[in-house]
């Protein structure tokens, strides 16, 4: 079940209503059943994978906690990691690895037989696997006491708002909240609903609308023009932000209505003034996961500067691979790794240059130049993320830097289907998004406890719903969220 489906619009109010009506003891079992139903509605045949992963990690974490023998604890941790990551590898990366090995052998003149399995990628497998791993590792480290009740732990793994696309929650944050019995709260309901509406706006009114223009370029790279690639890539930067942060907003809103606070996953990423800062603002739950469970165990920055840079690069390679079984994602991760390393190596040099020019690092112009620079670098990397294959990425680069400059802007826009209406709608939707963000930062300058203003604000959120609805009616069918494939 996707958030932007009719089924979810029926499912969610029923679940929220039951949550507040049922007695405390029945709340979490209801949430568990609802979460499994939510997943089964999409992929019933793969529900057993979540149950199996949950069961294995629960049993092993219980034994790890009880055992006094370090060797046994280590062996169990390793076994759990192998099993959980093995399931992830099999379903997500087997065909990718098989194809890569076959291609490599062919490159050296061999004629191998390619083994390709007919596998369906389980939705959200990367998310719930990582959430499970963080639990087992935290228990191993002694940071978290293992949950005694299996079904309660199962709810932590499968809690429906964040099951298929995060945020990747930590046990220390989510489990205690799931155990509490939250009574109805006007404040939580209003804030949660507003979060959801903004999420729907981002997804339906911005991301889905823009995707049409992006697809027109990326799905036909052989006919793409250089200007078309630049416009489509900049639009994709907006699309993926709205798509993913929109999903997160809806997830956070769904949980908030029930009094549960999920972690923040985005913090104005395109306002970052460095690539390092960008990664502390984009997909925060994954970035912090990699930091805590990969970067620091690799040695972090404790083993010298060179090793720290290597660790950063490894983390970004793995992060790229986490996003998808394709070399385009690996390259995307590698590019960000190189960005980080270059950024770190040139930091002192850039600061010295600014000092010599007598310009402060916090200068308004410098900050915005950096923001634009970060956006351009990130957008360039998005090209590889969005390209359908490495061959397509190479073709797009060729069209962008060599052969695609013979077509003018108006012909490019026309080929993309961006007419006057499309241009205005795209510009307005992006600008509205920025204004909503500014409203959040500044407030609207009024006393929100005032009944009339509150009502008027509420009615405007109703207009957003109407806008989404009209947009759905005038557009194609509802699309899935990009991060569902990860």
């Amino acid at each position: 079940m996707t958030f932007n489906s009719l089924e979810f619009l029926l499912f969610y109010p029923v679940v929220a209503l039951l949550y507040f009506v049922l007695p405390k003891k029945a709340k979490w079992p209801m949430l568990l059943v609802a979460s499994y139903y939510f997943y089964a509605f999409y992929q019933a045949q793969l529900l057993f994978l979540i149950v199996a992963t949950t069961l294995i990690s629960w049993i092993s974490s219980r034994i790890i906690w009880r055992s006094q023998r370090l060797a046994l604890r280590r062996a169990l941790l390793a076994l759990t990691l192998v099993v959980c990551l093995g399931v992830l590898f099999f379903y997500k990366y087997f065909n990718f690895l098989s194809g890569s090995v076959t291609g490599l052998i062919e490159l050296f003149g061999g004629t191998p037989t390619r083994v390709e399995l007919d596998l369906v990628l389980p939705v959200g497998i990367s998310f719930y696997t990582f959430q499970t791993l963080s639990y087992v590792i935290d228990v191993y480290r002694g940071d978290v006491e293992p949950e005694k009740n299996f079904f309660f732990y199962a709810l932590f793994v499968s809690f429906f708002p964040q099951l298929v696309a995060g945020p990747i929650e930590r046990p220390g944050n989510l489990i205690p909240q799931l155990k509490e019995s939250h009574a109805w709260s006007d404040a939580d309901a209003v804030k949660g609903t507003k979060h959801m509406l903004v999420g729907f706006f981002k997804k339906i009114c911005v991301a889905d609308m823009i995707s049409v223009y992006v697809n027109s370029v990326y799905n036909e790279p052989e006919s793409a023009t250089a200007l078309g690639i630049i416009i489509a890539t900049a639009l994709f930067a907006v699309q993926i932000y709205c798509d993913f942060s929109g999903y997160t907003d809806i997830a956070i809103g769904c949980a908030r209505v029930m009094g549960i606070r999920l972690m923040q996953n985005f913090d104005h990423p395109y306002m970052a003034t460095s690539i390092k800062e960008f990664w502390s603002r984009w997909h925060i739950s994954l970035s912090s996961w990699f930091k805590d469970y990969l970067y620091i165990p690799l040695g972090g920055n404790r083993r010298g500067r060179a090793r720290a840079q290597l660790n950063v690069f490894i983390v970004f390679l793995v992060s790229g691979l986490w996003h998808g079984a394709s070399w385009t994602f690996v390259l995307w991760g590698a590019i960000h790794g190189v960005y980080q390393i270059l950024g770190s190596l040139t930091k002192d040099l850039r600061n010295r240059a600014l000092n010599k020019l007598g310009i402060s690092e916090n200068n308004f112009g410098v900050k915005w130049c950096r923001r634009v620079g970060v956006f351009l670098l990130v957008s360039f990397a998005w090209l590889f993320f969005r390209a359908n294959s490495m061959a397509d990425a190479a073709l797009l680069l060729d069209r962008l830097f060599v052969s695609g400059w013979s077509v003018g802007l108006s012909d490019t826009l026309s080929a993309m289907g961006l007419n006057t209406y499309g241009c205005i709608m795209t510009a307005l939707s992006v600008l509205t998004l920025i204004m909503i963000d500014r409203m959040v930062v500044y407030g609207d300058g009024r006393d929100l406890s005032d009944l009339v203003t509150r009502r008027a604000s509420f009615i405007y959120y109703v207009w957003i719903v109407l806008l989404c609805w009209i947009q759905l009616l005038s557009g194609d069918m509802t699309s899935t969220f990009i991060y569902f494939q990860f």
Partner: protein
Amino acid sequence: MTVLTGTLTIISLSVIVLLHIVTAIFDNKISKILEYVNVTLHIALVLALLYDGVPIEEAPLAFMISLFVYTLTRAVSGYLRRGGGNDI
């Protein structure tokens, strides 16, 4: 290419936009009443869209313009008044 074709739609939208600006500038009882008037005008806008028989794609545009002006005026008035942030 004309992007808004209905005369009634354009008139309704113009009044709505004007009221957005007025209610953002003035923070008194009249502006609060005007907010209600503006909300009512949105219903009139739907009716105008229906009466004009405009293409369906004009409906999102009309609402998007209204929403953009609303958020813009509120963000600007918030910036000028510095009322403090909201949790969305």
